[in-house]
């Protein structure tokens, strides 16, 4: 009987597949992408069939119609320009919505993460802040948005403040939960290595809770884009929400679908990029 030598390195499955030239892993990835593309293709086919059954572009345009209409308005739209819309092209408005969302998401999420992690150190701070955060964080954006428009006006700053607020709440609560659940022995170990409270926070709590906080950032990004588009529906000079509201009043279902799907695709792409960043930052996990 062969006895394994003590302290033998555990070999993770990924290392095994790498050792085999990575072919099983690449095949698995290709398979996953293939299934996703198949899912999308099936959805498009079903959509086309449904539009043929509906037999009315006004009710349910097919995917080809939507893509054609979207492409025609991508850089400019004469109809919207006639209505007095400044910068009517879809591209610039998508850029506006996504750009503001990202900026507000970054500011709100970073503030939320810092406050969330710090609040975990103080029961008094948590007792004061939690009721307010839970109450206001639970109010739908469509309810809070009119107040922000009245208080801060229709300019982009008011929308950013609202988006940043929602990101602040969601990431803050995730960060706080992560810090509270963090194993105390890890921080105690750092203390016995001679780290003071500030060093323990920066070099133990922050990196140790990073996976949870980064997951919160992903959720907050999707929320940010959705909230930004939603409040643009209520009143805005620019943005996808503004265009969706105009097209809806015109009964242009094709454009509404196109703009909504485009925003969703951009959100998926941003999430994909963020996941790559998260994977690089948490490769130790």
């Amino acid at each position, binding site marked *: 009987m062969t006895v394994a030598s003590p302290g033998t390195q555990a070999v993770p499955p990924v290392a095994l597949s790498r050792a085999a030239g990575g072919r099983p892993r690449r095949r698995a990835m290709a398979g996953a992408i293939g299934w996703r593309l198949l899912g999308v293709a099936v959805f498009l086919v079903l959509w086309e069939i449904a539009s043929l059954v509906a037999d009315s572009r006004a009710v349910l345009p097919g995917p080809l119609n939507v893509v054609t209409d979207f492409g025609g308005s991508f850089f400019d739209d004469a109809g919207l320009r006639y209505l007095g819309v400044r910068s009517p092209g879809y591209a610039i408005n998508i850029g506006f919505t996504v750009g503001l969302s990202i900026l507000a998401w970054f500011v709100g999420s970073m503030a939320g993460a810092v406050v969330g992690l710090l609040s975990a150190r103080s029961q008094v701070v948590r007792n004061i802040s939690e009721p307010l955060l839970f109450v206001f964080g639970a109010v739908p954006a469509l309810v809070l948005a009119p107040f922000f428009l009245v208080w801060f006006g229709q300019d982009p700053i008011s929308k950013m403040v609202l988006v940043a607020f929602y990101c602040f709440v969601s990431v803050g609560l995730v960060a706080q939960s992560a810090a509270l659940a963090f194993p105390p022995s*890890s921080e*105690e170990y750092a203390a016995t*290595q001679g780290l003071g409270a500030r060093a323990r926070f920066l070099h133990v709590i922050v990196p140790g809770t990073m996976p949870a906080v980064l997951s919160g950032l992903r959720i907050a990004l999707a929320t940010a884009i959705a909230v930004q588009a939603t409040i643009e529906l209520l009143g805005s000079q620019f943005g996808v929400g503004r265009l969706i509201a105009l097209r809806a009043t015109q009964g242009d279902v094709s454009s509404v679908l196109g703009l909504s799907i485009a925003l969703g695709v951009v959100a998926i792409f941003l999430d994909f990029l963020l996941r790559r960043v998260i994977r690089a930052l948490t490769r130790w996990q």
Partner: protein
Amino acid sequence: MTTTQTDLAFEIRDLTVAFGKGPAAITPLRSLDLTVPRGQFLCILGPSGQGKSTLLRCMAGLQSPTSGSVLAEGTEVTGPDANLGMVFQQDAIPLWLRVGDNISFGPRMRGVAKSEWEPRVRHFIEAVGLAGRERAWPKELSGGMRKRVAIGAVFANDPDILLMDEPFGSLDYFTKATLHDTLLDLWAETGKTIVFVTHDVDEALKLADRIIVVTDGRVGADIPLDFARPRGDDLRMDVTADAIRRDLLEVLQAPAKVQS
């Protein structure tokens, strides 16, 4: 030789720790007295829930006494300190640091000059058998190897006193045996004071200069050992060791007998 205060790594007087108040209070330590000479390898034995981990935490400054005092090298322990290094039962090393960064964690964070800590860290990486694994993540290591990282890290930080709370409790027999040898080699090399909590009598007999048994919050037995080192499996055949083992088991089982 007269033991003076400066010869003592620890001087613990009338140490009491109580959680809660009134009749429902839990008192894991009751007026415990203990002295530990410098350079001694002390094992603290005891059944679960009898106060040995609480005692170790008081010595590490992680638990404040309700009354009494804990002096480490003549200075009262008021909180955790780099001179009181600790190895925990659970995995407590930062998982986001590679092996090399983990072992150099303490001196780097304390601002020690790189020229001072680098040779020490390199030495202890080799001493714990992790040479060539400096770039590995903890997730890539087995449980035994992560314990090596923890031991290397605590020695590399150069405390005078090492406190170990059942560090090998979750490991298999062979891994434990190898780590015992590694720990004893490092102790012989550095001459540090080690206080080692365990519930394993054979582990204590192999490692310790002295064994104390903590039962019902007090020192129930205090047994010096003078077996020659290194101590191998032949210790199991030693008559004196066997007698000590039986005495220890009797003391350890005494609270259970009282309860039944």
